[in-house]
């Protein structure tokens, strides 16, 4: 290529990491998956006035009847408290997290869509980077929140822009009156891994406070095999060290019997070298990512029938990239507010009306100027349970984005428990939804961006069966099977124009369809407790039609979408012992749009064994040995990015309560 073109591509690719159009290159990724829904996802649990639980927040699933939810609760997350969401989701679900190496850029893909098609919400606010329109899951420490809900499938009405393939909800539900708990953990592992975390919680009936801090560093100088002229040469990974910390602080104060004031802070900071590809030169790329998120909210229950909530938030996201040849800095500040009012007409019906406003102020090198944008949306969410065994929702959202109006996004869903015996229940779930993705700031304001890009829009359907087997015996089994189909239109791709500049265009229609199956078993016998989950995803995602200028062929599986993915995890505990195993299988993935080259499938096995010792009446010490990639598999998640061989870490955890 010519010098000019070379540098232009250099800039674009390097900045692509920040620029979000990595998809212009070999990206796109996917997956899909799952684990059983929690039993309460469809229960009308919202606004209740109970003596103890005076103002109870609604679960995310309340207006998401008929769709599939995977929940990772604090128990599941506690094993990863010094890790990141990438580690948790990759180990415990069949979701495909496209990962450029340990601790490196990690983008999620649900149901055959790209990372930009997954909305990530923290306490109700979208935390996808406004410039990129996606989140890097390696920047989100697992211990910062205590609950992760992954809602599969489109839900534009409920969660707004980007909820096309799915939505990841991060929250830390409060347990009132649970006193004080403190835990501290230190980890040491191979390849320079050192990590620590500290969590303290206090709650009585009036105040709930939680502080969580974590630190993690790794040299990641693991050995890998490099094919060279003399054969396979073992080399040590270079330029892949990471160092990151996170601090989150939540506080909720009850004001009287009917109101509640919440404040939350979440700071994350990561300093990473960017791991080069095997066989590529090391251009000493590094990136500093910092996010500061502040949130305040007030909820008030006027009577048994009315509840109002107002929330405001301010985020600042900084991405500073540099390599041997260039630097690129980006800072986006988002100021936003949400207000909603919920009418509970009777125990069977409730309606939530609300609106949201966002103001983005961006200073991104690639825009060449300071840019600001306002977005608004209004929504109505209706939940109606005509009979106890039938739940219905109908939701609607309309967004407005600086001169552009994304499509009206309605969702309807139903869940019907049509068969029941004392031990078993069988439910049918269906939902249909229109989703949308507003253009990212990069897509609109990048020097070669297009301010007039249309929002992408998706139309999806799903149907599923859920079976629950609960006996008086100390065990239960939940199984869920879902089939889905979604068409995403005006799918944006960055392509070179006649001048050779990469520019985003609404190019194609993509069809994603597949099947998700999951089963979860829990049981205990005396001191032995077992939870086992198996989840499988079949995902077929391909371009079905495109405009003439779109060079990618139709009818081929999109790059980085495994057709098959599977996860099987077990958690055992017996007296003071605990054992966890995680087995994941990821099918082959094509690495380019022509579906020629592919990465082979791989199976990974992780396990951890721990023992807890009481060292004082209120103090306990847990020693945990963790093993990763136990079968020593040589694999790649993203093409040519080396992954660590078998490795181990040791954790010490001290808890007080």
């Amino acid at each position: 290529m010519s010098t000019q073109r070379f540098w232009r591509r250099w800039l674009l690719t390097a900045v692509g990491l920040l620029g979000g159009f990595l998809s212009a290159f070999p990206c796109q990724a996917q997956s899909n998956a799952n684990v059983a829904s929690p039993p309460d996802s469809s229960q009308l649990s919202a606004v209740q006035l109970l003596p103890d639980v005076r103002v109870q927040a609604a679960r995310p699933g309340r207006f998401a009847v008929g769709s599939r939810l995977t929940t990772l609760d604090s128990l599941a997350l506690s094993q990863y408290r010094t890790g990141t969401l990438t580690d948790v989701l990759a180990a415990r679900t069949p979701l495909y997290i496209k990962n450029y190496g340990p601790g490196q850029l990690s983008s999620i893909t649900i149901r055959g869509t790209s990372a930009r098609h997954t909305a990530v919400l923290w306490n109700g606010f979208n935390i996808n980077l406004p410039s990129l329109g996606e989140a890097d899951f390696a920047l989100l420490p697992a211990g910062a929140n205590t609950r992760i809900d992954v809602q599969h499938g489109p839900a534009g009405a409920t969660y707004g822009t980007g909820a096309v393939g799915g939505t990841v909800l991060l929250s830390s539900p409060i347990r009132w009156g649970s006193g004080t708990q403190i835990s501290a953990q230190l980890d040491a592992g191979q390849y320079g891994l050192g990590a620590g975390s500290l969590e303290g919680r206090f709650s009585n009936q009036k105040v709930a406070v939680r502080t969580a801090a974590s630190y993690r560093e790794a040299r990641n100088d693991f050995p890998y095999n490099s094919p060279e002229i003399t054969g396979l040469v073992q080399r040590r990974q270079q330029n892949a060290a990471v160092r990151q910390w996170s601090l989150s602080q939540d506080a909720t104060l009850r004001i009287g019997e009917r109101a509640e004031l919440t404040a939350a802070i979440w700071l994350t900071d990561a300093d990473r070298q960017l791991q080069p590809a095997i066989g590529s030169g090391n251009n000493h790329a590094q990136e500093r990512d910092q996010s500061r998120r502040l949130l305040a909210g007030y909820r008030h229950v006027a009577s048994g029938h009315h509840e109002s909530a107002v929330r405001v938030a301010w985020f600042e996201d900084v991405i500073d990239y540099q390599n041997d040849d260039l630097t690129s800095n980006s800072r986006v500040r988002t100021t936003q507010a949400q207000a909603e009012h919920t009418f509970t007409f009777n125990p069977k019906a409730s309606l939530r009306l609300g609106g949201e406003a966002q103001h983005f102020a961006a200073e991104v090198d690639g825009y060449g100027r300071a840019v600001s944008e306002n977005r608004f949306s209004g929504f109505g969410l209706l939940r109606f349970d005509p009979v106890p065994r039938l739940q219905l929702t109908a939701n609607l959202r309309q967004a407005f984005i600086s001169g552009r109006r994304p499509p009206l996004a309605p969702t309807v869903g139903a869940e019907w428990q049509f068969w029941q015996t004392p031990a078993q229940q069988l439910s049918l779930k269906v939902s249909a939804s229109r989703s949308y993705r507003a253009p990212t700031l990069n897509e609109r304001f990048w020097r070669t961006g297009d301010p007039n890009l249309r929002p992408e829009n998706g139309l999806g359907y799903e149907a599923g069966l859920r079976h629950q087997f609960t006996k008086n015996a100390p065990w239960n089994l939940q199984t869920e099977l879902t089939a889905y189909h979604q068409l995403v239109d005006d799918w944006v791709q960055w392509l070179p124009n006649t001048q050779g500049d990469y520019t985003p265009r609404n190019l194609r229609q993509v069809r994603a369809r597949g099947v998700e199956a999951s089963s979860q078993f829990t049981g205990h016998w005396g001191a032995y407790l077992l939870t086992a989950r198996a989840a499988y995803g079949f995902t077929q995602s391909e371009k079905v039609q495109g405009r003439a200028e779109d060079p990618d062929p139709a009818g081929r599986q999109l790059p980085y979408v495994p057709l098959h993915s599977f996860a099987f995890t077990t958690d055992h505990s017996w007296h003071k012992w605990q054992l966890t195993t995680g087995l994941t299988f990821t099918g082959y993935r094509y690495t380019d749009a022509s579906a020629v080259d592919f990465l082979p499938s791989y199976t990974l096995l992780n396990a951890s064994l721990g023992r807890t010792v009481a060292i004082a009446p209120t103090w306990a010490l847990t020693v945990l040995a963790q093993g990763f990639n136990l079968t020593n598999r040589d694999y790649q998640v993203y093409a040519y990015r080396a992954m660590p061989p078998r490795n181990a870490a040791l954790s010490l955890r001290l808890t007080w309560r």
Partner: protein
Amino acid sequence: MFQLHFSSFLTRTLLTGIGALTLFGCDPESDGPLTGPPAPAGTGSNVYVVNEGQFNTPNGAISLFSKTSRAVVDNNLFTKVNGRILGDVVQSMTVVGDQGYIVVNATGKVEVVSMADFKQVATIDRLQQPRYLAAVSSSKAYLSEWIERGKPGRVAVIDLRTNTVTKSIAVGRQPEQLLLANGRLYVANSDENTISIINPTSDAVEATVQVQDGPSSLAQDKNGNIWVGCGGITRYDPVTFAVLSSTNGSLVRFAPGSPTNQTVLPFASGGPSNLVINGAKDQLYYSYKSAVYQLSASATMLPATPLVRRNFYGLGIDPQDNTIYGSIAPFTTTGKVIRYQPTGAAIDSFGVNIGPNSFVFY
């Protein structure tokens, strides 16, 4: 009762698991390594297409097209023959004697292969952004290296017998193509408006001659004149990527004996590229504004009408019959090559690998 259910659950899970691992373990079949010579080489009937691959991804490749069978023999020849990846941004390929020198820019190496069977012979590594190679004899070659943006580049002197770098010669910024003509090596310094002239006997820069902005390609015509394709230079703000300045392109012609006595054929904007010459050395071809133009070596002005109205990433002229090869390189997916008669009439097309940028006829 419980035992029954529990074991059935376990069995089911296990079956699902094993089923998944065996059934889905079926990855698409990869072709095995090529055995034997890929195609008769050295008669001029083979076309080697240089595919850059995706940037920051070592999936560059060489495609082999047989003119005889009018078919692609293989789209990843080096990997197929040698069982390993070629590298990141395959920039160019030059044949010296019966060996091919494949310059891999972002990996910083040259892979040396035997043209008869494309088997690996050597790797010349630890290079910094290498671009193009030109041999002055069967034992000595020169290789341009960018080194680093904004800083002077260099020309490495390579001993072809040992495939090692013996010395380096400092030249201008972003040196691109090299041309050996009348006992001198010409180096196009593409981030400047100069060419460096090196004496291959002393390996010293004898002169640095000013041409026009952005010289990148070089050719010598049948009259002995040297042509320099200058693309113009567009400068971007390193922080905002805003266009700071932009100059027009031009073709420059001079006789080797009097390099400062130049004929300049100016373009109305920047961006002419891919200057190549035919086998008879009397016709030049280049890309400009989404079209290919043909120019006689004796021309005094640029042609107004294009030969082919199509935007090509790479351009090649078959020295045997003047067939025009143009490549389309989308980079998100594999590219293709379209062949044209010397008159500009399309002949056929064939699919290659990702980012085809140039052609070697051998």
